[in-house]
């Protein structure tokens, strides 16, 4: 077993869609709607690598795991940095032994991302994020900025 990890090329949508259909959700919207998949994971202006912001694990060239990253601008009090929301994280059942899932997640530590965020996590996976030095928040912090003169402009 020689498992390798890399990011998906733009021409690999058919393999990803097939894997999503079989191991994530049958007839998932990303399987039915390539433009939506492209809009979500193909953001050259936000993603420093070439191709999709989508990590793949392969065993001798055969796809055995995927992890999507939805690129976004992480804005902290006006300081903008690149970040990704992770999505569609699944390893084929016959390859769940070992640490392939962990190594797949590591693909998003390599680029210079300021934030890698998972929202709505399964409580059973909290340990994963804590051990990997992630911060687990009980709720999503929201901040509201009151822009001077905004109410006048909205009138």
């Amino acid at each position: 077993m020689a498992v390798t990890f890399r990011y998906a090329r733009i021409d690999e949508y058919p393999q990803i869609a097939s894997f999503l259909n079989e191991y994530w959700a049958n007839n998932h919207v990303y399987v039915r709607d390539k433009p939506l998949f492209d809009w979500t994971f193909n953001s050259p202006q936000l993603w420093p690598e070439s191709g999709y912001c989508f990590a793949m694990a392969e065993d001798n060239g055969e796809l055995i795991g995927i992890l999507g990253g939805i690129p976004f601008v992480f804005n902290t009090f006006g300081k903008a940095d690149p970040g990704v929301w992770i999505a569609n994280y699944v390893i084929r059942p016959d390859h769940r032994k070992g640490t392939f899932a962990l190594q797949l997640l590591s693909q998003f530590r390599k680029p210079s991302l300021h934030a890698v965020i998972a929202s709505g996590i399964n409580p059973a996976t909290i340990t994963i994020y804590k051990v990997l030095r992630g911060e687990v928040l009980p709720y999503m912090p929201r901040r509201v900025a009151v822009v001077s003169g905004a109410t006048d402009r909205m009138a």
Partner: protein
Amino acid sequence: MLEKTRAIVADIFEVPLETVTPQSSPDTIATWDSMHHLNLVLALEQEFGVQFSPEEIEQLLSVELIVALVAEKMPIVENA
């Protein structure tokens, strides 16, 4: 340290202690997946008072590798 590590590994992966050897790894323990691996890391950090980086966590793939890395990280206790 080897005995403590073997006991932790047996407990986390729910296998008999006598089956855990220095060569035990994901190849020999059927329940050794990513979730159990991270629970193992957490238990090791608590037991030995060490902390592993995410890169090191990926390298802890056998009992003997764990013992070696923990030994490297543990503070040297000198006799008074």
